[in-house]
């Protein structure tokens, strides 16, 4: 089956070639883990390697922030905007949602005019202020995601997780059911150093790598490396060496 490649070394292999077309893909993590960088790389790769114009919907940061952040990786977003291959649009969840529900809305016109194929929504967390009722909130996000799919877009949606390390906070996990794939970025502490871990929690309609892999943000963007080996309890944020657990469980003292 055709795949939508992220262009992120290591991640496409974990996704068995990339995201499935016209799907919603959630990237969740604590501040600074690289959610937006992953999303920008997905957009940049689409434009430059796959001839797939991209759209960035930002609900908080000004476009200038994206131009600057992208420039740090050598991605010239301003030029891509001038060339009509990228649009960075600052808006709000309620306006973009209402717009997607309109026939001939701004987003629909933009998608048609530019031939947009990929979208980064940064971030889904901002929908949380639209309703305190989890059921209503779920319906709102579901409608928004369906609107993106109706436009034929493959979406990366970021979501903040306040927990810097260790267990997730009590965020509404029902959002995980609404998306087609769910990628988790985590900080983990190993031998007094902080590392970053990436896990593909789910991928609807496809096999995927179940391993927890180390990743780094380099001058070229995200690079997913080898799995953590000889460690367990990675997602707890404080993994143990497996040999220590074995000794603790089986070796008589």
């Amino acid at each position, binding site marked *: 089956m055709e795949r939508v490649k992220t262009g992120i070394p290591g991640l496409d292999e974990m996704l068995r070639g990339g995201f499935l077309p016209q799907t919603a893909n959630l990237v969740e993590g604590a501040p600074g883990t690289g959610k937006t960088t992953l999303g920008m790389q997905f957009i940049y790769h689409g434009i430059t390697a796959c001839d797939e114009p991209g759209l960035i919907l930002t609900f908080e940061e*000004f*476009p*200038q922030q994206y131009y600057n952040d992208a420039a740090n990786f050598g991605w010239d977003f301003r030029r891509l905007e001038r060339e009509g291959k990228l*649009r*960075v*649009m*600052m*808006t*709000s969840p*309620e*306006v973009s949602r*209402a*717009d997607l*529900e*309109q026939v001939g*809305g*701004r987003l629909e016109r933009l998608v048609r005019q530019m031939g947009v194929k990929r979208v980064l929504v940064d971030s889904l967390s901002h929908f949380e202020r639209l309703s305190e009722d989890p059921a209503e909130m779920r319906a709102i996000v579901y409608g928004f995601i369906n609107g993106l799919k109706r436009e034929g877009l493959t979406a990366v949606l970021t979501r903040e997780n306040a927990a810097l390390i260790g267990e997730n906070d009590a965020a509404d996990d029902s959002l995980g059911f609404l998306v087609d794939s769910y990628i988790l970025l985590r900080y983990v502490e190993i031998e007094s150093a902080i590392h970053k871990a990436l896990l593909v929690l789910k991928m609807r309609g496809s096999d995927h790598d179940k391993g927890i892999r180390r990743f780094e943000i380099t001058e070229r963007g995200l690079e997913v490396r080898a799995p953590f080996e000889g460690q367990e309890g990675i997602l707890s944020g404080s993994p143990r060496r497996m040999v220590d657990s074995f000794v603790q469980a089986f070796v008589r003292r």
Partner: protein
Amino acid sequence: MEGQDMELDLTGRLMADMDPQLLDFLQHKVNTFVKWDLVRFFHDNPHTTDTAENIARYAGRSVDTIRVELAELARAGLLEESRLGEMTVYSLTADAATRDLLARFVAASDDRQFRVKAIYHIIRGTR
């Protein structure tokens, strides 16, 4: 020279060496500091479409103030006001000439001398 005469003289000098189009822009379109902030915001975010409430949040101003100023900017032709469902939303005008004038204003306001003159005109206009 009397105080009023001095002010007229200063006004005359400040107006004399300002681009007439930008002067008109200041006198009739961007005649408050809030409007100045708003047009700068839309210049920096030309693809934004949003409600007065959200624009107030981005601009760090009260929504009551912003609502009035946005409506005036729309009447002046700098912004477009439209309905989206039950919401009133604002976006930058698509008119190329107006966008060009705004870009010239923003570029000019990077110059300190222009800013001083523009501030003077706005303060004078609000009295």
